[in-house]
Protein backbone atom coordinates (compact mmCIF):
# COMPACT_ATOMS: atom_id res chain seq x y z
CA UNK A 1 0.00 0.00 0.00
CA UNK A 2 2.87 2.36 0.75
CA UNK A 3 3.95 2.14 -2.90
CA UNK A 4 0.51 3.30 -3.98
CA UNK A 5 0.60 6.16 -1.47
CA UNK A 6 3.91 7.28 -2.83
CA UNK A 7 2.68 7.29 -6.38
CA UNK A 8 -0.49 9.16 -5.40
CA UNK A 9 1.64 12.01 -4.14
CA UNK A 10 3.82 11.97 -7.25
CA UNK A 11 0.81 11.96 -9.53
CA UNK A 12 -1.24 14.63 -7.81
CA UNK A 13 1.64 17.04 -7.26
CA UNK A 14 3.18 16.57 -10.71
CA UNK A 15 3.49 19.89 -12.57
CA UNK A 16 1.51 18.41 -15.47
CA UNK A 17 -1.53 17.89 -13.23
CA UNK A 18 -2.40 21.57 -13.67
CA UNK A 19 -5.79 23.03 -12.87
CA UNK A 20 -7.85 20.14 -14.12
CA UNK A 21 -6.54 17.81 -11.50
CA UNK A 22 -9.13 15.60 -9.82
CA UNK A 23 -10.44 13.31 -12.55
CA UNK A 24 -7.02 12.97 -14.19
CA UNK A 25 -5.46 12.19 -10.80
CA UNK A 26 -8.05 9.49 -10.13
CA UNK A 27 -7.36 7.89 -13.52
CA UNK A 28 -3.58 8.04 -13.08
CA UNK A 29 -3.75 6.64 -9.55
CA UNK A 30 -5.96 3.80 -10.77
CA UNK A 31 -3.57 3.07 -13.66
CA UNK A 32 -0.65 2.94 -11.20
CA UNK A 33 -2.48 0.49 -8.97
CA UNK A 34 -1.68 -3.18 -9.65
CA UNK A 35 -5.28 -3.97 -8.74
CA UNK A 36 -6.70 -1.39 -11.14
CA UNK A 37 -8.63 0.59 -8.57
CA UNK A 38 -8.61 3.63 -6.31
CA UNK A 39 -8.28 2.55 -2.69
CA UNK A 40 -9.76 4.32 0.31
CA UNK A 41 -6.25 5.36 1.35
CA UNK A 42 -5.65 6.82 -2.09
CA UNK A 43 -8.94 8.77 -1.88
CA UNK A 44 -7.84 10.22 1.46
CA UNK A 45 -4.46 11.16 0.07
CA UNK A 46 -5.90 12.81 -3.07
CA UNK A 47 -8.37 14.80 -0.94
CA UNK A 48 -5.54 15.92 1.34
CA UNK A 49 -3.19 16.87 -1.49
CA UNK A 50 -5.82 18.76 -3.48
CA UNK A 51 -7.27 20.40 -0.38
CA UNK A 52 -10.82 19.15 -1.02
CA UNK A 53 -13.15 16.97 1.03
CA UNK A 54 -13.15 13.19 0.73
CA UNK A 55 -16.82 13.31 -0.19
CA UNK A 56 -15.94 15.48 -3.21
CA UNK A 57 -13.41 12.88 -4.30
CA UNK A 58 -15.92 10.04 -3.80
CA UNK A 59 -18.64 12.00 -5.57
CA UNK A 60 -16.50 12.24 -8.69
CA UNK A 61 -14.93 8.79 -8.41
CA UNK A 62 -18.26 7.00 -8.05
CA UNK A 63 -19.86 8.79 -11.02
CA UNK A 64 -17.53 7.52 -13.73
CA UNK A 65 -17.83 3.92 -14.84
CA UNK A 66 -14.12 3.61 -15.67
CA UNK A 67 -13.10 4.31 -12.08
CA UNK A 68 -13.38 1.43 -9.65
CA UNK A 69 -13.42 1.75 -5.88
CA UNK A 70 -13.03 -2.01 -5.52
CA UNK A 71 -9.96 -4.07 -6.44
CA UNK A 72 -10.03 -5.54 -9.94
CA UNK A 73 -7.92 -7.91 -11.98
CA UNK A 74 -4.58 -6.97 -13.53
CA UNK A 75 -6.24 -6.94 -16.95
CA UNK A 76 -9.63 -5.49 -17.75
CA UNK A 77 -11.53 -7.27 -20.51
CA UNK A 78 -14.18 -4.91 -21.89
CA UNK A 79 -16.92 -6.30 -24.09
CA UNK A 80 -18.90 -3.82 -26.18
CA UNK A 81 -22.58 -4.32 -25.38
CA UNK A 82 -24.05 -1.81 -27.81
CA UNK A 83 -26.40 -2.49 -30.72
CA UNK A 84 -23.89 -2.87 -33.62
CA UNK A 85 -21.84 -5.38 -31.62
CA UNK A 86 -24.97 -7.02 -30.23
CA UNK A 87 -26.26 -7.68 -33.75
CA UNK A 88 -22.85 -8.87 -34.94
CA UNK A 89 -22.66 -11.70 -32.41
CA UNK A 90 -21.60 -10.20 -29.10
CA UNK A 91 -23.70 -12.70 -27.14
CA UNK A 92 -21.66 -15.67 -28.37
CA UNK A 93 -18.39 -13.85 -27.70
CA UNK A 94 -19.49 -12.88 -24.20
CA UNK A 95 -20.68 -16.41 -23.39
CA UNK A 96 -17.35 -17.83 -24.55
CA UNK A 97 -15.40 -15.31 -22.47
CA UNK A 98 -17.54 -16.04 -19.41
CA UNK A 99 -16.90 -19.74 -19.83
CA UNK A 100 -13.17 -19.37 -20.44
CA UNK A 101 -12.69 -17.00 -17.51
CA UNK A 102 -15.19 -18.76 -15.26
CA UNK A 103 -16.79 -15.49 -14.18
CA UNK A 104 -19.71 -13.30 -15.29
CA UNK A 105 -19.84 -9.62 -16.25
CA UNK A 106 -18.54 -7.33 -13.52
CA UNK A 107 -16.52 -10.10 -11.83
CA UNK A 108 -12.82 -10.83 -11.36
CA UNK A 109 -11.19 -14.23 -11.85
CA UNK A 110 -10.08 -15.89 -8.57
CA UNK A 111 -6.42 -15.67 -9.65
CA UNK A 112 -6.75 -11.88 -9.87
CA UNK A 113 -5.78 -11.77 -13.52
CA UNK A 114 -8.90 -10.65 -15.37
CA UNK A 115 -11.97 -8.56 -14.71
CA UNK A 116 -14.78 -8.91 -17.24
CA UNK A 117 -16.77 -5.76 -17.91
CA UNK A 118 -19.35 -4.47 -20.37
CA UNK A 119 -18.68 -1.19 -22.14
CA UNK A 120 -20.84 1.20 -24.14
CA UNK A 121 -19.33 1.36 -27.64
CA UNK A 122 -15.60 1.15 -28.29
CA UNK A 123 -15.91 3.11 -31.54
CA UNK A 124 -15.05 -0.06 -33.46
CA UNK A 125 -18.42 -0.72 -35.09
CA UNK A 126 -16.72 -1.27 -38.47
CA UNK A 127 -15.23 -4.44 -36.96
CA UNK A 128 -17.94 -5.54 -34.56
CA UNK A 129 -18.16 -7.54 -32.41
CA UNK A 130 -15.28 -5.91 -30.60
CA UNK A 131 -13.62 -6.19 -27.21
CA UNK A 132 -10.75 -4.39 -25.57
CA UNK A 133 -8.20 -5.89 -23.21
CA UNK A 134 -6.49 -3.08 -21.33
CA UNK A 135 -5.53 -0.74 -24.19
CA UNK A 136 -5.63 -3.27 -27.01
CA UNK A 137 -8.64 -3.43 -29.31
CA UNK A 138 -9.76 -6.70 -30.97
CA UNK A 139 -12.45 -6.79 -33.66
CA UNK A 140 -14.34 -9.09 -36.04
CA UNK A 141 -14.38 -11.64 -33.23
CA UNK A 142 -15.80 -15.11 -33.04
CA UNK A 143 -16.23 -17.09 -29.83
CA UNK A 144 -13.12 -19.16 -30.70
CA UNK A 145 -11.00 -16.09 -31.48
CA UNK A 146 -11.96 -14.44 -28.19
CA UNK A 147 -10.96 -17.54 -26.22
CA UNK A 148 -7.65 -17.74 -28.12
CA UNK A 149 -6.88 -14.12 -27.21
CA UNK A 150 -7.46 -14.78 -23.50
CA UNK A 151 -5.22 -17.87 -23.64
CA UNK A 152 -2.49 -15.89 -25.38
CA UNK A 153 -2.71 -13.19 -22.69
CA UNK A 154 -2.23 -15.83 -20.01
CA UNK A 155 0.78 -17.32 -21.81
CA UNK A 156 2.39 -13.93 -22.33
CA UNK A 157 1.96 -13.10 -18.67
CA UNK A 158 3.41 -16.46 -17.63
CA UNK A 159 6.45 -15.88 -19.84
CA UNK A 160 6.83 -12.39 -18.38
CA UNK A 161 6.82 -13.84 -14.86
CA UNK A 162 9.44 -16.50 -15.47
CA UNK A 163 11.74 -14.25 -17.52
Amino acid at each position, binding site marked *: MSTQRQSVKDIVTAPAAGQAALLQALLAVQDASPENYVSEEAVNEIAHLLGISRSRVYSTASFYSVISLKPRGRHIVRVCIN*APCENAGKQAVLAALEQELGVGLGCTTPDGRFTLEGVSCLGACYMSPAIKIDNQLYGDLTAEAAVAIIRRCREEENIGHTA
Partner: protein
Amino acid sequence: MGTQLDSAKSVFRLGLFRDFPTLMHYRDFGGYQALAKALAGSPEAVIGDIGAAGLRGRGGAAFPTAAKLQMVRDNPPGERYVICNADEGEPGTFKDRFIMTHIPFQLLEGMTIAAYAVGAAQGFIYIRHEYPEAQETMRRAIAAARAAGLLGGDILGSGFSFDIEIFSGAGSYLCGEETALLSSIEGKKGRPRLKPPYPTQSGLWGRPTLINNVETLANIPPIVDRGPDWYRALGTADSHGTKLISLSGDVVRRGLYEVPFGTTFREIIDNCGGGVRQGRLKAVNIGGASGVVVPPWELDCPLEYSACGQHGITIGSGAVFVMDDSRSILENVRNRVDFFLHESCGKCTPCREGLRQAGRIIHRLLAGNAVLADIDNLERYTRTMQNAAFCGLGQAAGNSLISSLKYFRGEYEAMCRDRGEAAPKEATA
Protein backbone atom coordinates in the same frame (compact mmCIF):
# COMPACT_ATOMS: atom_id res chain seq x y z
CA MET B 1 -11.41 1.88 -45.75
CA GLY B 2 -13.69 1.68 -48.74
CA THR B 3 -13.92 4.25 -51.50
CA GLN B 4 -12.91 7.78 -50.67
CA LEU B 5 -13.74 11.11 -52.21
CA ASP B 6 -11.44 12.66 -54.79
CA SER B 7 -9.08 14.82 -52.69
CA ALA B 8 -10.00 17.99 -54.63
CA LYS B 9 -13.55 17.56 -53.32
CA SER B 10 -12.63 16.28 -49.90
CA VAL B 11 -12.29 18.04 -46.58
CA PHE B 12 -10.51 15.16 -44.89
CA ARG B 13 -8.54 13.47 -47.70
CA LEU B 14 -8.45 10.32 -45.58
CA GLY B 15 -7.02 8.36 -48.50
CA LEU B 16 -3.83 10.45 -48.36
CA PHE B 17 -3.30 9.96 -44.68
CA ARG B 18 -3.77 6.26 -44.28
CA ASP B 19 -0.79 5.44 -42.09
CA PHE B 20 1.25 8.63 -41.86
CA PRO B 21 0.09 10.92 -39.10
CA THR B 22 3.41 12.81 -39.21
CA LEU B 23 3.70 16.57 -39.29
CA MET B 24 6.00 16.46 -42.32
CA HIS B 25 3.51 14.38 -44.27
CA TYR B 26 0.66 16.72 -43.32
CA ARG B 27 2.66 19.77 -44.38
CA ASP B 28 3.67 18.11 -47.66
CA PHE B 29 -0.02 18.09 -48.55
CA GLY B 30 -0.60 21.73 -47.69
CA GLY B 31 -1.07 21.38 -43.94
CA TYR B 32 -0.64 24.55 -41.85
CA GLN B 33 -0.99 26.82 -44.88
CA ALA B 34 -4.39 27.77 -43.46
CA LEU B 35 -2.92 28.74 -40.09
CA ALA B 36 -0.29 30.96 -41.75
CA LYS B 37 -3.01 32.55 -43.85
CA ALA B 38 -5.26 33.08 -40.82
CA LEU B 39 -2.51 34.62 -38.71
CA ALA B 40 -1.61 37.01 -41.54
CA GLY B 41 -5.19 38.31 -41.50
CA SER B 42 -7.59 39.39 -38.77
CA PRO B 43 -9.62 37.13 -36.46
CA GLU B 44 -12.74 38.72 -37.96
CA ALA B 45 -11.66 37.54 -41.41
CA VAL B 46 -11.41 33.95 -40.13
CA ILE B 47 -14.92 34.12 -38.64
CA GLY B 48 -16.10 35.73 -41.89
CA ASP B 49 -14.72 32.84 -43.96
CA ILE B 50 -16.26 30.20 -41.71
CA GLY B 51 -19.58 32.07 -41.79
CA ALA B 52 -19.48 32.40 -45.59
CA ALA B 53 -18.71 28.67 -45.85
CA GLY B 54 -21.85 27.94 -43.81
CA LEU B 55 -20.12 25.46 -41.50
CA ARG B 56 -22.42 23.95 -38.89
CA GLY B 57 -21.53 21.88 -35.84
CA ARG B 58 -20.89 18.23 -36.67
CA GLY B 59 -21.39 16.84 -33.17
CA GLY B 60 -25.14 16.57 -33.61
CA ALA B 61 -26.70 19.96 -32.85
CA ALA B 62 -25.69 21.60 -36.18
CA PHE B 63 -25.28 25.05 -34.63
CA PRO B 64 -23.67 27.61 -37.01
CA THR B 65 -19.97 27.57 -36.11
CA ALA B 66 -19.23 31.19 -37.04
CA ALA B 67 -22.03 32.44 -34.75
CA LYS B 68 -20.52 30.49 -31.86
CA LEU B 69 -17.05 31.85 -32.57
CA GLN B 70 -18.44 35.38 -32.68
CA MET B 71 -20.26 34.93 -29.35
CA VAL B 72 -17.04 33.90 -27.61
CA ARG B 73 -15.07 36.66 -29.33
CA ASP B 74 -17.61 39.33 -28.27
CA ASN B 75 -16.97 38.84 -24.54
CA PRO B 76 -15.16 41.56 -22.59
CA PRO B 77 -11.37 41.09 -22.63
CA GLY B 78 -10.09 38.33 -20.37
CA GLU B 79 -9.19 34.66 -20.29
CA ARG B 80 -11.18 32.29 -22.46
CA TYR B 81 -10.81 28.69 -23.61
CA VAL B 82 -11.20 26.49 -26.65
CA ILE B 83 -12.34 22.95 -25.96
CA CYS B 84 -12.45 20.17 -28.50
CA ASN B 85 -15.19 17.70 -27.65
CA ALA B 86 -13.66 14.32 -28.48
CA ASP B 87 -15.90 12.35 -26.12
CA GLU B 88 -17.28 10.42 -29.06
CA GLY B 89 -19.61 8.20 -27.10
CA GLU B 90 -22.54 7.99 -29.52
CA PRO B 91 -22.85 4.26 -30.20
CA GLY B 92 -22.15 3.46 -33.84
CA THR B 93 -19.86 6.46 -34.33
CA PHE B 94 -16.12 6.31 -34.96
CA LYS B 95 -15.37 9.34 -37.15
CA ASP B 96 -13.65 11.43 -34.49
CA ARG B 97 -11.39 8.53 -33.58
CA PHE B 98 -10.27 8.33 -37.23
CA ILE B 99 -9.60 12.06 -37.43
CA MET B 100 -7.48 11.87 -34.28
CA THR B 101 -5.51 8.79 -35.28
CA HIS B 102 -5.12 9.64 -38.99
CA ILE B 103 -5.14 13.43 -39.37
CA PRO B 104 -4.33 14.71 -35.86
CA PHE B 105 -2.61 17.82 -37.21
CA GLN B 106 -5.69 18.94 -39.11
CA LEU B 107 -7.55 18.96 -35.79
CA LEU B 108 -4.72 20.85 -34.05
CA GLU B 109 -4.55 23.36 -36.89
CA GLY B 110 -8.32 23.87 -36.77
CA MET B 111 -8.24 24.38 -33.00
CA THR B 112 -5.39 26.87 -33.30
CA ILE B 113 -7.23 28.88 -35.95
CA ALA B 114 -10.40 28.81 -33.81
CA ALA B 115 -8.36 30.00 -30.80
CA TYR B 116 -6.96 32.86 -32.87
CA ALA B 117 -10.50 33.78 -33.95
CA VAL B 118 -11.86 33.94 -30.39
CA GLY B 119 -8.68 35.18 -28.68
CA ALA B 120 -7.95 32.14 -26.50
CA ALA B 121 -4.53 31.11 -25.23
CA GLN B 122 -5.41 27.70 -23.78
CA GLY B 123 -7.19 24.73 -25.26
CA PHE B 124 -8.24 21.28 -24.09
CA ILE B 125 -9.08 18.16 -26.03
CA TYR B 126 -11.49 16.02 -24.01
CA ILE B 127 -10.92 12.49 -25.34
CA ARG B 128 -12.96 9.57 -24.10
CA HIS B 129 -11.21 6.93 -22.03
CA GLU B 130 -12.11 4.20 -24.54
CA TYR B 131 -9.70 5.79 -27.08
CA PRO B 132 -6.21 5.42 -25.54
CA GLU B 133 -4.65 5.19 -29.01
CA ALA B 134 -6.24 8.51 -29.99
CA GLN B 135 -4.99 10.09 -26.75
CA GLU B 136 -1.50 8.84 -27.49
CA THR B 137 -1.51 10.03 -31.12
CA MET B 138 -2.80 13.46 -30.11
CA ARG B 139 -0.15 13.77 -27.37
CA ARG B 140 2.58 13.01 -29.89
CA ALA B 141 1.06 15.40 -32.40
CA ILE B 142 0.90 18.20 -29.82
CA ALA B 143 4.57 17.66 -28.94
CA ALA B 144 5.55 17.72 -32.63
CA ALA B 145 3.52 20.88 -33.27
CA ARG B 146 5.15 22.59 -30.26
CA ALA B 147 8.62 21.61 -31.44
CA ALA B 148 7.86 23.10 -34.87
CA GLY B 149 6.59 26.38 -33.41
CA LEU B 150 2.99 25.64 -34.42
CA LEU B 151 1.80 25.55 -30.82
CA GLY B 152 3.07 27.40 -27.77
CA GLY B 153 4.42 30.97 -27.65
CA ASP B 154 4.60 33.28 -30.67
CA ILE B 155 3.21 30.83 -33.26
CA LEU B 156 4.88 31.28 -36.68
CA GLY B 157 6.33 34.58 -35.44
CA SER B 158 2.87 36.15 -35.27
CA GLY B 159 2.92 37.04 -31.58
CA PHE B 160 -0.13 34.80 -31.06
CA SER B 161 0.27 32.12 -28.37
CA PHE B 162 -1.84 29.03 -27.84
CA ASP B 163 -1.31 25.67 -26.22
CA ILE B 164 -3.35 22.49 -25.88
CA GLU B 165 -3.73 19.90 -23.12
CA ILE B 166 -5.28 16.46 -23.39
CA PHE B 167 -7.98 15.60 -20.88
CA SER B 168 -9.16 12.01 -20.57
CA GLY B 169 -12.79 11.14 -19.99
CA ALA B 170 -13.70 8.26 -17.70
CA GLY B 171 -16.47 6.30 -19.34
CA SER B 172 -19.43 8.64 -19.21
CA TYR B 173 -21.53 9.10 -22.36
CA LEU B 174 -23.21 12.12 -20.80
CA CYS B 175 -19.90 14.01 -20.77
CA GLY B 176 -20.34 14.51 -24.51
CA GLU B 177 -23.03 17.04 -23.52
CA GLU B 178 -21.08 20.29 -23.45
CA THR B 179 -21.94 21.51 -19.96
CA ALA B 180 -21.43 18.04 -18.46
CA LEU B 181 -18.04 18.00 -20.18
CA LEU B 182 -17.16 21.30 -18.48
CA SER B 183 -18.15 19.90 -15.08
CA SER B 184 -16.00 16.86 -15.79
CA ILE B 185 -12.87 18.94 -16.55
CA GLU B 186 -13.52 20.92 -13.38
CA GLY B 187 -13.29 17.66 -11.45
CA LYS B 188 -16.98 17.23 -10.72
CA LYS B 189 -19.54 14.59 -11.66
CA GLY B 190 -20.30 14.88 -15.36
CA ARG B 191 -23.78 16.28 -14.90
CA PRO B 192 -25.31 18.91 -17.19
CA ARG B 193 -25.81 22.52 -16.13
CA LEU B 194 -28.75 24.80 -16.75
CA LYS B 195 -28.51 26.85 -19.97
CA PRO B 196 -28.38 29.85 -20.21
CA PRO B 197 -25.78 30.98 -19.43
CA TYR B 198 -24.26 29.24 -22.43
CA PRO B 199 -20.61 28.17 -22.36
CA THR B 200 -19.87 30.95 -24.87
CA GLN B 201 -20.46 33.39 -21.98
CA SER B 202 -19.78 31.28 -18.90
CA GLY B 203 -18.00 28.02 -19.57
CA LEU B 204 -14.93 26.40 -18.07
CA TRP B 205 -14.28 27.85 -14.59
CA GLY B 206 -16.88 30.48 -15.44
CA ARG B 207 -14.88 31.86 -18.37
CA PRO B 208 -16.13 32.20 -21.96
CA THR B 209 -15.51 28.90 -23.74
CA LEU B 210 -15.73 27.68 -27.29
CA ILE B 211 -16.70 24.01 -27.41
CA ASN B 212 -16.72 22.25 -30.77
CA ASN B 213 -16.73 18.71 -32.00
CA VAL B 214 -13.59 17.16 -33.54
CA GLU B 215 -15.05 17.02 -37.05
CA THR B 216 -16.23 20.65 -36.87
CA LEU B 217 -12.78 21.94 -35.91
CA ALA B 218 -11.07 19.76 -38.53
CA ASN B 219 -13.30 21.43 -41.17
CA ILE B 220 -11.76 24.83 -40.45
CA PRO B 221 -8.30 24.52 -42.11
CA PRO B 222 -9.64 23.50 -45.56
CA ILE B 223 -12.22 26.33 -45.40
CA VAL B 224 -9.56 28.93 -44.60
CA ASP B 225 -7.02 27.47 -47.02
CA ARG B 226 -9.22 26.81 -50.05
CA GLY B 227 -11.84 29.45 -49.37
CA PRO B 228 -15.57 29.46 -48.60
CA ASP B 229 -16.59 29.26 -52.28
CA TRP B 230 -14.77 25.98 -52.75
CA TYR B 231 -16.41 24.65 -49.59
CA ARG B 232 -19.94 25.76 -50.48
CA ALA B 233 -19.66 24.07 -53.86
CA LEU B 234 -19.19 20.68 -52.16
CA GLY B 235 -22.68 20.35 -50.71
CA THR B 236 -26.18 21.53 -51.58
CA ALA B 237 -27.81 24.96 -51.44
CA ASP B 238 -29.04 24.06 -47.95
CA SER B 239 -26.10 22.22 -46.38
CA HIS B 240 -22.50 22.93 -47.30
CA GLY B 241 -19.38 20.78 -47.28
CA THR B 242 -19.13 17.10 -46.56
CA LYS B 243 -20.06 14.79 -43.71
CA LEU B 244 -18.22 11.83 -42.26
CA ILE B 245 -20.45 8.79 -42.07
CA SER B 246 -19.76 5.90 -39.70
CA LEU B 247 -21.40 2.98 -41.51
CA SER B 248 -22.00 -0.22 -39.56
CA GLY B 249 -24.33 -3.19 -39.32
CA ASP B 250 -25.53 -5.55 -42.06
CA VAL B 251 -23.76 -4.04 -45.07
CA VAL B 252 -21.01 -5.53 -47.23
CA ARG B 253 -18.42 -2.82 -46.47
CA ARG B 254 -18.65 -1.28 -43.03
CA GLY B 255 -16.39 1.71 -42.47
CA LEU B 256 -15.86 5.44 -42.44
CA TYR B 257 -16.94 7.41 -45.51
CA GLU B 258 -16.82 11.07 -46.38
CA VAL B 259 -19.81 12.09 -48.51
CA PRO B 260 -20.93 15.47 -49.80
CA PHE B 261 -24.19 16.78 -48.34
CA GLY B 262 -27.04 15.87 -50.68
CA THR B 263 -26.07 12.21 -50.93
CA THR B 264 -29.09 10.06 -50.12
CA PHE B 265 -29.02 7.47 -47.35
CA ARG B 266 -29.73 4.82 -49.96
CA GLU B 267 -26.62 5.88 -51.89
CA ILE B 268 -24.58 5.70 -48.70
CA ILE B 269 -25.77 2.16 -48.03
CA ASP B 270 -25.53 0.93 -51.64
CA ASN B 271 -22.53 2.82 -53.05
CA CYS B 272 -20.33 3.17 -49.98
CA GLY B 273 -21.47 0.10 -48.12
CA GLY B 274 -22.04 -2.19 -51.11
CA GLY B 275 -25.64 -2.86 -50.07
CA VAL B 276 -27.08 -5.26 -47.54
CA ARG B 277 -24.90 -8.31 -46.90
CA GLN B 278 -27.67 -10.89 -46.88
CA GLY B 279 -31.42 -10.92 -46.71
CA ARG B 280 -33.37 -7.72 -47.25
CA LEU B 281 -33.05 -4.28 -45.78
CA LYS B 282 -35.43 -3.88 -42.88
CA ALA B 283 -34.51 -0.72 -41.00
CA VAL B 284 -31.74 1.83 -40.62
CA ASN B 285 -30.78 3.58 -37.44
CA ILE B 286 -29.52 7.06 -38.28
CA GLY B 287 -27.69 9.26 -35.79
CA GLY B 288 -26.63 6.62 -33.27
CA ALA B 289 -28.41 5.55 -30.10
CA SER B 290 -29.92 9.02 -29.80
CA GLY B 291 -31.09 8.89 -33.42
CA VAL B 292 -34.11 7.44 -35.18
CA VAL B 293 -35.02 4.07 -36.68
CA VAL B 294 -36.45 4.39 -40.19
CA PRO B 295 -37.80 1.92 -42.76
CA PRO B 296 -36.30 1.50 -46.28
CA TRP B 297 -38.81 3.84 -47.96
CA GLU B 298 -37.39 6.84 -46.07
CA LEU B 299 -33.88 6.27 -47.42
CA ASP B 300 -34.24 8.41 -50.54
CA CYS B 301 -34.09 11.40 -48.26
CA PRO B 302 -30.88 13.33 -48.95
CA LEU B 303 -28.35 13.93 -46.18
CA GLU B 304 -29.23 17.57 -45.76
CA TYR B 305 -30.34 19.49 -42.68
CA SER B 306 -33.68 20.77 -44.03
CA ALA B 307 -34.73 17.58 -45.85
CA CYS B 308 -33.81 15.40 -42.87
CA GLY B 309 -35.72 17.77 -40.60
CA GLN B 310 -38.83 17.36 -42.75
CA HIS B 311 -38.50 13.57 -42.69
CA GLY B 312 -37.91 13.50 -38.93
CA ILE B 313 -34.41 12.11 -39.49
CA THR B 314 -31.66 13.09 -37.07
CA ILE B 315 -28.29 13.38 -38.83
CA GLY B 316 -26.67 13.56 -35.40
CA SER B 317 -23.10 12.35 -35.41
CA GLY B 318 -23.49 10.73 -38.84
CA ALA B 319 -23.81 7.14 -37.62
CA VAL B 320 -25.69 4.88 -40.06
CA PHE B 321 -26.44 1.44 -38.65
CA VAL B 322 -28.13 -1.00 -41.02
CA MET B 323 -30.43 -3.87 -40.00
CA ASP B 324 -31.49 -6.69 -42.30
CA ASP B 325 -34.80 -8.54 -42.08
CA SER B 326 -33.48 -11.09 -39.58
CA ARG B 327 -33.27 -8.37 -36.92
CA SER B 328 -35.84 -7.64 -34.26
CA ILE B 329 -36.70 -3.96 -33.91
CA LEU B 330 -37.75 -4.53 -30.32
CA GLU B 331 -34.42 -6.14 -29.37
CA ASN B 332 -32.58 -3.18 -30.83
CA VAL B 333 -34.78 -0.67 -29.07
CA ARG B 334 -34.27 -2.62 -25.83
CA ASN B 335 -30.51 -2.27 -26.32
CA ARG B 336 -30.89 1.51 -26.76
CA VAL B 337 -33.14 1.91 -23.71
CA ASP B 338 -30.80 -0.19 -21.53
CA PHE B 339 -27.91 1.96 -22.75
CA PHE B 340 -29.62 5.26 -21.87
CA LEU B 341 -30.81 3.95 -18.51
CA HIS B 342 -27.20 3.11 -17.67
CA GLU B 343 -25.91 6.48 -18.88
CA SER B 344 -28.65 8.65 -17.35
CA CYS B 345 -27.12 10.75 -14.56
CA GLY B 346 -30.33 10.64 -12.52
CA LYS B 347 -30.54 14.40 -12.13
CA CYS B 348 -34.02 14.85 -13.60
CA THR B 349 -37.10 12.68 -13.12
CA PRO B 350 -38.35 12.39 -16.74
CA CYS B 351 -35.09 10.81 -17.88
CA ARG B 352 -34.31 8.74 -14.78
CA GLU B 353 -37.81 7.33 -14.23
CA GLY B 354 -39.06 7.55 -17.80
CA LEU B 355 -36.25 5.31 -19.02
CA ARG B 356 -36.78 2.89 -16.15
CA GLN B 357 -40.48 2.55 -17.02
CA ALA B 358 -39.76 2.33 -20.76
CA GLY B 359 -37.23 -0.40 -20.04
CA ARG B 360 -39.77 -2.35 -17.97
CA ILE B 361 -42.35 -2.21 -20.74
CA ILE B 362 -39.88 -3.27 -23.45
CA HIS B 363 -38.67 -6.19 -21.34
CA ARG B 364 -42.29 -7.13 -20.63
CA LEU B 365 -43.05 -7.01 -24.37
CA LEU B 366 -40.08 -9.23 -25.16
CA ALA B 367 -41.16 -11.70 -22.48
CA GLY B 368 -44.65 -11.85 -24.01
CA ASN B 369 -46.30 -10.45 -20.88
CA ALA B 370 -47.35 -7.05 -22.19
CA VAL B 371 -50.80 -5.81 -23.21
CA LEU B 372 -51.73 -3.27 -25.88
CA ALA B 373 -52.28 -0.56 -23.24
CA ASP B 374 -48.57 -0.86 -22.39
CA ILE B 375 -47.70 0.47 -25.84
CA ASP B 376 -49.77 3.59 -25.27
CA ASN B 377 -48.08 4.10 -21.92
CA LEU B 378 -44.70 3.61 -23.52
CA GLU B 379 -45.54 6.32 -26.02
CA ARG B 380 -46.67 8.69 -23.24
CA TYR B 381 -43.51 8.16 -21.18
CA THR B 382 -41.42 8.73 -24.27
CA ARG B 383 -43.18 12.03 -25.07
CA THR B 384 -42.64 13.14 -21.49
CA MET B 385 -38.91 12.42 -21.74
CA GLN B 386 -38.66 14.24 -25.05
CA ASN B 387 -40.50 17.30 -23.75
CA ALA B 388 -39.38 17.53 -20.15
CA ALA B 389 -35.91 16.02 -19.72
CA PHE B 390 -33.29 18.45 -18.43
CA CYS B 391 -30.68 17.89 -21.11
CA GLY B 392 -30.20 16.51 -24.59
CA LEU B 393 -29.52 12.98 -23.37
CA GLY B 394 -33.01 12.49 -21.97
CA GLN B 395 -34.67 14.38 -24.81
CA ALA B 396 -32.90 12.29 -27.45
CA ALA B 397 -33.30 9.00 -25.58
CA GLY B 398 -36.86 8.83 -26.86
CA ASN B 399 -35.97 9.16 -30.56
CA SER B 400 -35.49 5.46 -31.27
CA LEU B 401 -38.64 4.64 -29.28
CA ILE B 402 -40.89 7.17 -30.99
CA SER B 403 -39.62 6.46 -34.49
CA SER B 404 -39.87 2.70 -34.06
CA LEU B 405 -43.39 3.09 -32.68
CA LYS B 406 -44.25 5.19 -35.71
CA TYR B 407 -42.86 2.84 -38.35
CA PHE B 408 -42.85 -0.57 -36.69
CA ARG B 409 -45.83 -0.46 -34.33
CA GLY B 410 -46.96 -3.79 -35.70
CA GLU B 411 -43.92 -5.47 -34.17
CA TYR B 412 -44.81 -4.07 -30.77
CA GLU B 413 -48.43 -5.13 -31.09
CA ALA B 414 -47.49 -8.62 -32.25
CA MET B 415 -45.76 -9.14 -28.89
CA CYS B 416 -48.85 -8.30 -26.83
CA ARG B 417 -50.93 -10.96 -25.10
CA ASP B 418 -54.20 -9.33 -26.07
CA ARG B 419 -53.32 -8.74 -29.73
CA GLY B 420 -56.21 -9.24 -32.12
CA GLU B 421 -58.77 -8.62 -29.40
CA ALA B 422 -60.65 -5.63 -30.71
CA ALA B 423 -61.64 -3.51 -27.76
CA PRO B 424 -63.54 -0.58 -29.25
CA LYS B 425 -65.10 0.71 -26.02
CA GLU B 426 -66.33 3.86 -27.72
CA ALA B 427 -68.20 1.83 -30.31
CA THR B 428 -70.48 0.24 -27.70
CA ALA B 429 -71.30 3.55 -26.07
